[in-house]
Each structure stands twice: as structure tokens, then as C-alpha cells.
């Protein structure tokens, strides 16, 4: 009996062990190795060279204007995309909640952008925005903006990246918020209406309040994704102009400039930032995932 009991106590650990080992091998171990590497001069173009240089890499990274630029850009992508995706996403969710003909089909169609490969989206955008007579220029003619060099100037370029990202991931917010809205009991609205609440009051006092946990989850999941933004920058601009993000900066220093130690230092800093950000929100996340 005692033996059997002991076995039963061990069972959950035995069941989780392979998974945890797998994650440690593929993610945690590289993560540690990455920290180790960040203290070394490890050029990929000189085979066999690896030399301890202390904090030198970190010094170079945080004084590199391109790094600071990529940090700034990531912040811009994160903030702008997060807000627009959320606001439009909530609007779309509200619309998809209403009764109209073909609602089922429209709900299904609304997730279409998420099904596209990010590299395909990047290429679509590159085609729709090319210089000298693209379809977007044509559609914008009535606005009289004149010819915009979408892919060749700083601010238009960032708009191109942001719009591709918003197009692809707005549905993510929309469907999760829609699920949240669908879970709100109709009686709640009816009761408020009987009490004489205005549409606006219902929205701010009921919808937004009840939806709060869902809103927080959406914002957290999206910001963690947006922090990693890489694909459109690689595909559309090859990091050109000053569009690069932190992920692209790491990719570039590691695999184009071939300074692996340096790239490792940059990625440790990147991880630290993500970690701090995640920790600030993590205490909140815990509450919401533990329902």
C-alpha cells in the first residue's frame, strides 16, 4: 500500500518531466548559453575565435545609435499598433455582435488575415504600396495627398509596417473581445435599460466593466507579440531606412554582421526588457488565468 501511494505521488512529476526537460533543452538552455555568450567576442566570420571580454559587448550595444533607434521603433510599433488594434477590434466585435444577414459568414471571414503567412502579408503590402502608381496611391488620389514614397521614406515606411500588422492582427483582438461580449448575459443590458441608462452609460458602465479581464488578457497577449515584431520589417524593408525593431537588430548583428557575442548581449538586454514588462503585468495575469 505504501509503495503504491509513493508511486501515485510521483506520477504527476513523471508525467511532466519529459515536457519540462524538452522545454529546458530547447529554450532554457539556449537562454543560459546566450547569457554566457554575451560576455565573449565571438565573431562568426573567424572560425575558432572566442575570447572573454567582460561587459564590453553590453557597452557597445547600449551606446550604439542603431540599437537605441530599434528600441525606440519597437516602442512606437508596440504602442501605436496595440492601441489601434484594440480600439478597432472592440468596434468590430461590437458590430459582429449585432444581428444582421450573413453574420455567421462575416464572423468566419473576419479571421482571414490571421490565416495568412506574415511573409505573404509583407509581400502583399510591398506590392500594394510600391513606388510610382501603386493601387494604394490610386485609391488615395481623392484625398489629394500627392505622390507618397511609401517604401522610401521614414514615416510612410513605418505606416506601411503598422498597417500590415494591424490588418493581420486586429482580428485577434476582435474575436477574443467578441467571445467576451457574447458571455455577457443579456439580462444585464435589459436591467440597465429599464433603469433608464443611456447607450453610452451601458457601454462604459457595463460592457467595459464586465469585459475588463478579457480586455487585459488581449492587451497582454498582443503586447508580448508586438514586442517581438520582426516579419514585416524583414520582408518589406530588409531593415532598411530606420525601420528596424529589436528582434531585427538582433538578427542583423548576429547573422548579417556575424558578431554573435554582440548579438547575444543585445538579446539579453531585449529579454530583460521583456521580462521587466512581463513582470509588471504578470501579477495581474496570474489572477486572470486562475479563474
Amino acid at each position, binding site marked *: 500500500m505504501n509503495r503504491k501511494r509513493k508511486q501515485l505521488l510521483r*506520477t*504527476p512529476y513523471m*508525467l*511532466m518531466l*519529459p*515536457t*519540462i526537460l*524538452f*522545454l529546458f*533543452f*530547447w*529554450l*532554457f538552455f539556449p*537562454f543560459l548559453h*546566450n547569457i554566457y*555568450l554575451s560576455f565573449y567576442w565571438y565573431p562568426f566570420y573567424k572560425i575558432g575565435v572566442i575570447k572573454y571580454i567582460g561587459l564590453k559587448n553590453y557597452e557597445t550595444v547600449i551606446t550604439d545609435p542603431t540599437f537605441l533607434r530599434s528600441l525606440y521603433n519597437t516602442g512606437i510599433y508596440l504602442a501605436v499598433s496595440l492601441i489601434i488594434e484594440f480600439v478597432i477590434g472592440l468596434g468590430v466585435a461590437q*458590430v*459582429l455582435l*449585432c444581428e444582421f444577414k450573413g453574420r455567421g459568414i*462575416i*464572423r468566419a471571414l473576419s*479571421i*482571414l*488575415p*490571421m*490565416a*495568412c*503567412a*506574415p*511573409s*505573404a502579408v*509583407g*509581400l502583399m503590402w510591398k*506590392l500594394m504600396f510600391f513606388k510610382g*502608381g501603386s*493601387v494604394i496611391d*490610386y485609391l488615395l488620389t481623392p484625398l489629394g495627398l500627392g505622390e507618397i514614397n511609401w517604401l522610401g521614406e521614414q514615416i510612410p515606411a513605418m505606416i506601411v509596417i503598422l498597417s500590415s500588422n494591424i*490588418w493581420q492582427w486586429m482580428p485577434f483582438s476582435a*474575436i*477574443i473581445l*467578441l*467571445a*467576451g461580449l457574447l458571455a455577457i448575459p443579456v439580462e444585464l443590458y435589459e436591467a440597465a435599460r429599464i433603469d433608464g441608462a443611456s447607450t453610452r452609460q451601458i457601454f462604459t458602465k457595463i460592457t467595459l466593466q464586465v469585459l475588463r479581464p*478579457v480586455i487585459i*488578457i488581449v492587451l497582454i497577449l498582443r503586447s*508580448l507579440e508586438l*514586442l*517581438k515584431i*520582426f516579419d514585416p520589417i*524583414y*520582408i518589406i524593408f530588409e531593415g532598411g531606412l530606420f525601420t528596424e525593431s*529589436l*528582434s531585427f537588430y*538582433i*538578427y542583423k548583428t548576429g547573422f548579417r554582421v556575424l558578431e554573435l557575442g554582440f548579438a547575444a548581449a543585445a*538579446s539579453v538586454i531585449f*529579454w530583460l526588457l*521583456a521580462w521587466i514588462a512581463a513582470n509588471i503585468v504578470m501579477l495581474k495575469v496570474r489572477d486572470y*488565468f*486562475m479563474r
Partner: protein
Amino acid sequence: MRLNVKRILIYVSVTIIIVWTLFPIYWMINVSFKRRVDVYTWPPSFVPPNPTIEYWIKTFTARPTLTYYRNTIITSLLSTIILLALSIPAAYALARFTFRRREDIAFLILSFRFLPAASVVISIYIFINMMGLLDSLVALAMIYAAMNIPIAVWILRSYLMEIPPELEESYMIDGHTRWEAIWRITLPLAKPGIIVSSILSLCFSWNEFLFAVLLTSSVNAKTLPVALSEYVGGEWGYCWNEIAVLSLTSMLPVLLFLILIQKHLARGLTMGAVR
């Protein structure tokens, strides 16, 4: 009167949503049927002036597109199989057993989901290089599995927790073993969760770009997103027609899968937090 205004508002908004969502797709379809010379006309043609299916055929015959498909399918399936084999037992343990530090372990697993790929990419590349696994589908599948296991464990756990343990117990009282009970009772009931986590894993692996572009270098292992990025420039120049065809055809399976799990999508994407 007021009601009519509301109706009109709804239909206007729905129209805007449809146009916004479908325009890029429509433009790809449009371009895929154009001749090369019609891609850059001014004003842009909204219907192909001389429609042709030349590029639909060429994409699959003149280039190793089918091999890229094979690579993508193998990688996605393999990573999903690894993912299921590892995350079902872990999720079961976290859902059914009470043991010390259970929630901490669950969050340890979840925290891997929040580890940015770019912060491990350098070392993963070096390891895979040392193991001689560069340009192989197996390495790619393993990494994708590792990246998706945290999500899958949490989704599966959320579904498993809804199944009352009494069902298993009463089946065991009838003289069956625990494994039989899990196999016959619990797993069939957890099927939606298994399907949702598999499909999300498949779709992720199908579209992933960063690791795919880094770890593959030849036609032996390149997946569709990487192949796509290479139809730009190079010896062929900008091949917009082929890009359009490939974008559309590679999107289709993912779209079908996502629509299939539409009802569970919000729950899956939030790892069980939103029902």
C-alpha cells in the same frame, strides 16, 4: 425611424469590415490572374485586362513549390505530434493531481511562452549547427514544438479541468485500469481541446518565419514562408504573379483549419482564459 438608422449603421460598418479585410486578398487574386506586364499599369486594373492562368501553372511546375509544400506539411505535422505527445501528459498531471507547487510549475511552463524568440535565436542556431541539424525539418519541428508546448499545455489543462474525475473513477470501478479510463473516457471528452491545440500548433508552424529563414538554406528544408520571401529579387526579379498564387494557396489550409475551430478559437488563443 431610430431603428432604421441603427440598421443602416450596422450595414455600413459591416461593409467597411468586409472591404478592409478582403481588399488585400482580392488584390492578390487579381494579380495572380494578370499577365506580367499588367501588374504595374496606371491606373491599376481592378480586373485582369487579359486574364491568364499561366502563373498558376508555372508556380507549381517551373519552381520546386510542391517540395516546399511537402517540407511545410512534414514540419507542421511532426511538430504537432511531438507537441501532443509531450503536452497531453503534462496537462493531465496539472489538471488531475494536486501536488506541491502545482501552480508554480504551471506558470513556469507558461513563462516559456513569454520568452521572445529573438532572445534565444543566436544560441539555438549555434546548437543546431553543432548538432549538424541545420537545414533539416526535424530541428525546425522540434523548435516549433518547444515554442508551442506552453500554449498547448494551458489549453489542454483548461479543457481537462472541465471533465469530472468521477467519470474516470467510476469506469475504473468497473474493473478497468487508469490507462484504459484515460484512453476511453478522458481523452475523447477532451477532444475539442486536443483539436484546438493541434490546429493552433499546425497553423503556427505553417506560417513561422524567423526560425525558418535562419535554419533552412536549401530546397530540402525551406518552408513556404521562406520560399515566398525568395520570390522577390534574385535571378527571377520581382515575380508578383507567383507570389500572389503562392500566398493564396498557402493560406487556404490555415484558413480552413481556423474556421473549423472558430467556436473555440478565442479560448484557444487566450490559452483557456476566455471561454
